[in-house]
């Protein structure tokens, strides 16, 4: 309990730091948010009067610390503010897009693990064998292929030629397959390599020899005794891969026409839509911190020897 409290206090500090950093960085970026928002709204160059009116209305003439304080107070009160360009509330914009991103992240993670764990185990069981080489080659290809390219490739083959899935869009499960495979394959490559390495380590451990010498079948040794221990570092990496999901999501969301957090953030940055930038980065910060917390808690389940400092006892 004390551990959790301590973690929560750090979380708040981290988020405060994140918000100050994003706020200063957006403020330092050249480009007038008033002009950018008006261009986005009206699709043409705004006149001087319009820009002045807009700056006045949105308090953009205030000095930086005042603007930050205003924003922070509103945010603590649960109000993330209103987008400059669409005039919707930031909370509702995030609300519309978050499900798409969560869906994509979850599906791609499932695909990544579904490919990576069996492939990694198969490689480790027979290192240097044909399966191992094939899996390693596959991992190399998976890591090297840029998302957008794989995305188009999958669209052309699976949607246009084979007519299995729709090209792009969101809604049904069928819309989710291609983007999840695109995003998941890159991740699975990284995870598969890691599973292989840790499995090889674990399979050399004395307790595995003991298990074998007891006469247990090889499959039980591998899946019951070795895999669980090999998964500890894999969970860490899978958790950290969440950043990869959010990064990759920008490209994958654009290619597959799935409006999510990635595209929302990129559009907001180009439109200098400060409230949206702040809101999304804050949310991403929260997601990161919570994932890390979840990863730490999972350790303790997978390996009860790990104490609260996160180190083996």
């Amino acid at each position, binding site marked *: 309990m004390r551990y959790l409290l301590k973690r929560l206090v750090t979380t708040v500090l981290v988020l405060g730091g994140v918000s100050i950093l994003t706020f200063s960085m957006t403020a330092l970026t050249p480009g007038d948010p008033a002009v950018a928002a008006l261009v986005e709204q009206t699709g043409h160059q705004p006149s001087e009067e319009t820009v002045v009116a807009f700056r006045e209305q949105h308090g953009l003439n205030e000095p930086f610390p005042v603007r930050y304080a205003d924003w922070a107070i509103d945010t603590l009160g649960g109000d993330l503010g209103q987008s400059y360009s669409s005039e919707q509330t930031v909370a509702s914009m995030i609300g519309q897009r978050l499900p798409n991103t969560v869906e994509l992240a979850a599906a791609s993670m499932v695909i990544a693990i579904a490919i990576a764990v069996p492939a990694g185990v198969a490689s480790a069981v027979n290192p240097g064998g044909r399966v191992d080489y094939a899996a390693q080659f596959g991992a190399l290809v998976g890591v090297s292929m840029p998302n957008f390219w794989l995305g188009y490739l999958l669209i052309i083959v699976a*949607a246009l030629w084979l007519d299995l899935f729709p090209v792009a869009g969101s809604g049904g499960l069928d819309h989710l397959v291609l983007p999840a495979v695109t995003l998941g394959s890159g991740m699975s490559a990284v995870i598969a390599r890691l599973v292989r390495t840790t499995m090889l380590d674990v399979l050399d451990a004395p307790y595995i020899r003991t298990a074998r010498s007891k006469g247990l079948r090889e499959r039980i040794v591998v899946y019951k005794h070795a895999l669980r221990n090999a998964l500890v570092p894999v969970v860490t990496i899978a958790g950290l891969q969440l950043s990869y999901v959010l990064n990759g999501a920008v490209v994958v969301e654009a290619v597959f*026409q799935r409006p999510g957090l990635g595209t929302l953030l990129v559009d907001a940055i180009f439109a200098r839509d400060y409230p949206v930038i702040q809101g999304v980065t804050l949310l991403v910060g929260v997601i990161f911190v919570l994932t890390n917390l979840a990863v730490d808690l999972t350790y303790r389940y997978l390996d009860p020897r790990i104490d609260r400092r996160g180190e083996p006892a």
Partner: protein
Amino acid sequence: MLTLRNRRLSRRDALKGATAGLIGLAGCSGTSQDGERTSSSEQTEQETTFRVGTPWNPDSLDPLVKGWMFRKLNVIEPLVIADYNASVKPGLASGWTTSDDNLTWKFTLREGVSFHDGTPLTVDAVVASLRRSFNSDSLASLPVESVSGSGERVVEIETSTPFAPLPAHLTRGPTSIIAESSYDDDGNVTAPVGTGPFQFDSWKPGERITTVSNPSYRGQTPAIDTLVYESVPDDQTRLLKLENAELDMARALSGSAISTLNDRPNVEPVTYAVPRSRYLVYDTTSPPFDDRNVRRAVMHAVDREKIVDSVLNGLGPAATGPFPSGVTNWANADLEPYPYDPQTARQLLTDAGWEPSEDTRERDGAPLEIDLWTYDARALPIVSEAVQAQLSQVGFDVSLQVMDYGTIEERANSEAFDLVMWSNSLLWYPDPDRLTDFVHSENATMFSGYANDRVDELLTEARQVTDAEERKRRYDEVQSIIQRDVPIGWLTYVTNVVGVDADVTGYEPLPTETCYHLENLDFDGGENASQTETANAQHRSPDALFRNRHRSKK
């Protein structure tokens, strides 16, 4: 032990499971899509759904924010609309007159118009809607003093100064007339209730707008029953969705899409020139471009035809002045283009004191180094590279920087720069008063710093007289002067590329891009149109309405 053995996992089993899962997924997707995916632009039980894919994001229902989007779909209509020759014509107003001092405009409302909620278009409704429009940010720059009703059918707009471009500004999306029922109690727009041939049905913010045909529209009822506006931000995806019949029209495609569209039997490209230009903005207040000869040298050094042919897939055409003469009568037909002539360019540079040196010219020991700024839209970076290469032929040393729009805007307005490559519409409201935004010494939004008293005087006069001939004479002179002084160097016009389902007929694109006019579309082939696309391709009748439609099929 037994139970364990039964539960054990073999690699083969895992593979089997995975394959079965994939096939299962594919299977259910196949069936679940059938209804949706084959429905594109076909009439099933007289229900026609038409989907338009664009890069733009529907993120607001308010005409003051995204009025142009609902205007393009023809959900909302303003008093005045843009005609095919980029002039104004009556919209919800059947006509208008001005007072002798040109300060009061009287717009007579069209008879027999009703909003989508059934209420009639009354003077009160128009006045309320227009007042809200003129109070907004986007129309703040117009000199409108008041809007009031006068009798049963007339709306009066008073301006503080004579303002001839007023009707053209009234074609803009944010001036569209919406009914009282569009707002909730707080005055927020919950649905744009307009008067157009399509009426708002539902939306998914950031994704799509769904509209349905308006059965009580005063004109012909559209052949489309449900019109869906989808945001597909990626160009390539938009094209692929059109190919896969997930869209019936894909807008704002790149020039390279034309060959793909020609190769596929079920889709066709439509291309049309629009009054939108790619141009160079010179900083006329700092060296080297404070010297007119240096600006002219650039115009002679850049081979515009070659840029169009080599990097723009032939989609220009090369520009002479601000307005393309085939599109609008406001273009000065007597403008002489700067011919591509590197020899003249070199001579002009020498005259300006820039002497040939090894690679880069020099003046008083300083090399002719310039920065060219641009942003990534409408092929501007690649056109800029071509300009960079061509300028180096005559002794410029050009460093090209691709930044984002906002950054250039801010820097060019606040510091000395050399050259900016920009693109935008010259007639997004159909009036040559747009030139004010480019070359007026004080009111320009483009940042050349150009100041010419005669130009200012002509632009001001042209706002004050309402006679079209009188105005054209002045705008022609402005065009001649800026052609001579080149504060802005017009490079190419823009040709739009739209991909459409091959069964579509009657699509006539509007050059000002303000409305798609999809209510005019028709579909040949009748039922099951998209299944018999190859058969249709043979008996498609030539349609005079298609202006520049690429019909050649390889």
